[in-house]
């Protein structure tokens, strides 16, 4: 069936608009679309979105992460095998992280990483045929925020929620940040790490994030105020 931007699409539909735009200039097709000989076909169910110049993608609901290059992900160290750590990032197979890919790591002083540690890393190599590879050093060799995340709490949620809270237009984070101080790392593989001063505040942040999945922007604002007031004890 023919569909246009903004429609709810099912796999098997094709969109001529993309082909027509594509005829003129280069078109970027994102996740959920696949180019076949005659048309651009939709491969995932969701809403067909367009960003102005020429990027199209389908915003669909998904829980299982497919690793792809350049994304940050939160992983849990499964085993130490020789000089690489096997890290579980929720994909179909465990990723490999070499001990040298930490800032300032040399043959002699290895980074102290235990089994079960939570690490925030960037996916260096990921393709459907190869095992994904992680790295904890950003382009100019600095640690930045990558590396082992100590204490705090980590929990799993759907990939859409991650995209939603990380999008600039989402009011969640900025309405929370001036309520009480907390640290947050969101991995594109559906895992979020949070740490605040007290336990209740950490839970509050987690509660706010999970609660925001099905709310519109203003409902999110009211929810955040509600949580803030609970925290400060106005409502018991």
């Amino acid at each position: 069936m023919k569909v246009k931007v903004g429609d709810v699409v099912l796999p098997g539909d094709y969109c001529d608009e993309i082909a027509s735009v594509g005829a003129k200039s280069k078109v970027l097709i994102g996740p959920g679309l696949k180019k076949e000989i005659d048309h651009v076909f939709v491969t995932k169910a969701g809403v067909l979105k367009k960003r102005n110049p020429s990027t199209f993608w389908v915003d669909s609901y998904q829980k299982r992460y497919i690793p792809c290059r350049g994304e940050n992900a939160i992983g849990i160290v499964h085993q130490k095998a020789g000089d690489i750590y096997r890290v579980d990032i929720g994909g179909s197979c465990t990723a490999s992280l070499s001990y040298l890919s930490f800032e300032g790591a040399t043959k002699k002083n290895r980074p102290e990483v235990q089994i079960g540690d939570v690490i925030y890393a960037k996916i260096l190599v990921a393709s459907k045929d190869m095992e994904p590879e992680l790295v904890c050093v950003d382009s100019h060799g600095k640690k930045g925020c990558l590396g082992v995340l100590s204490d705090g709490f980590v929990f799993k949620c759907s990939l859409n929620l991650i995209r939603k809270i990380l999008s600039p237009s989402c009011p969640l984070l900025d309405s929370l940040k001036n309520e009480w101080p907390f640290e947050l790392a969101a991995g594109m593989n559906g895992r979020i790490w949070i740490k605040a001063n007290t336990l209740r505040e950490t839970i509050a942040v987690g509660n706010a994030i999970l609660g925001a999945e099905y709310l519109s922007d203003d409902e999110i604002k009211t929810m955040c105020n509600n949580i803030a007031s609970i925290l400060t004890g106005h409502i018991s």
Partner: protein
Amino acid sequence: MKETIVSNSEKAFVQKLITSGHRLDGRTYKETRNHQISFGSDYGSCIASLGETKVMAQVSCEVVQPKQIRPNEGILYINVEVGPMAAPQFEANRQSDLTVYLNRLLEKCYKDSKCIDLESLCIVVEEKVWSIRVDVKILNHDGNLIECASIATLASLAHFKRPDVTRAGDKVIIHTMTEKDPIPTVLYHYPVCLTFAIFGSDILISDPSYIEEAVCMSVVDEDNVGGGLLVVGINQYKEPCLLDLTGAAIHSVNIVHKAILSASERGKLIIDIVKKSIISDDTLRQKRARINYKDIITNEHRQSLIRKELSIRLKNFNTNELKQESEEEMDQDDDDDVKIIEPSKYDIVATLPKTAEINAKTGKSAWIEISSDSEVE
């Protein structure tokens, strides 16, 4: 697919949280997740859900020969299945130690506790007895499987009705449901299993969720003071019929007393819920209402992630209701066309005695025909 291990930060955080008196999803130590029991269209099939953990129990019966050692007793057979539907790390039809554990506990709770009157299942001594088979299937594993499985088994056994049987001489007539209304199974008492997760040396939390169960069991491996899962089977007369501990040894005895005390009132609560749901189901069936599993399908589940089933929640967090949409049907069109094809030719010849043969006319194909065996026409 190996199970994703519990990360150190989760372990530390949950432990600190519990020792400080709170729990991840805002419940108190004694509070349980909400129970829901729904029955299928035929007798003896029910789905019990405890928060997000869902278990389906299906009871079926057939006439078999009794065992020699107990010629006048029926047979009760419980079979637990944990498939990939429960969680990705389980494999289909493979007997993992979790299934053995659940099977053993349910058998202790329902078979050895003599809660079902097996004599009433006997039709003809030494020849024909009813054999009741309970199939327990774990639909979703979100912690505390044994409690949810025992509720499902109890509800389905209490709800099950077997066809009426009349004996004419040595012949046995099994009446269908429509001829004679079926006989309910007689239950002497209603046992149910309750789980407690032990943290540190004296903290008892009831109805542990998936993460609390994982953290509690993983703490056992380290050297510090014990953590473990205590399962108490108890019936409505507050008589414990099952006690099972996995994990580290318990130091003080009063923990077990505390567990049994809190188990008895909680058990009473759950058994009342089960009884009420069965009575309400019976009244509905009297009024000829069509009971069916499709009633458990709701469409406000999408929004429910805001309300009670949130895995991380402040104690008194709630939110205003949200509007729901309804869905409707649309119509459609159709098309058709016709095609003709031409027949192909063979000759049929009766060659050897008792055989007939078709030699397909293989015309010389343009392609150079290279075949290993020299089947010359």
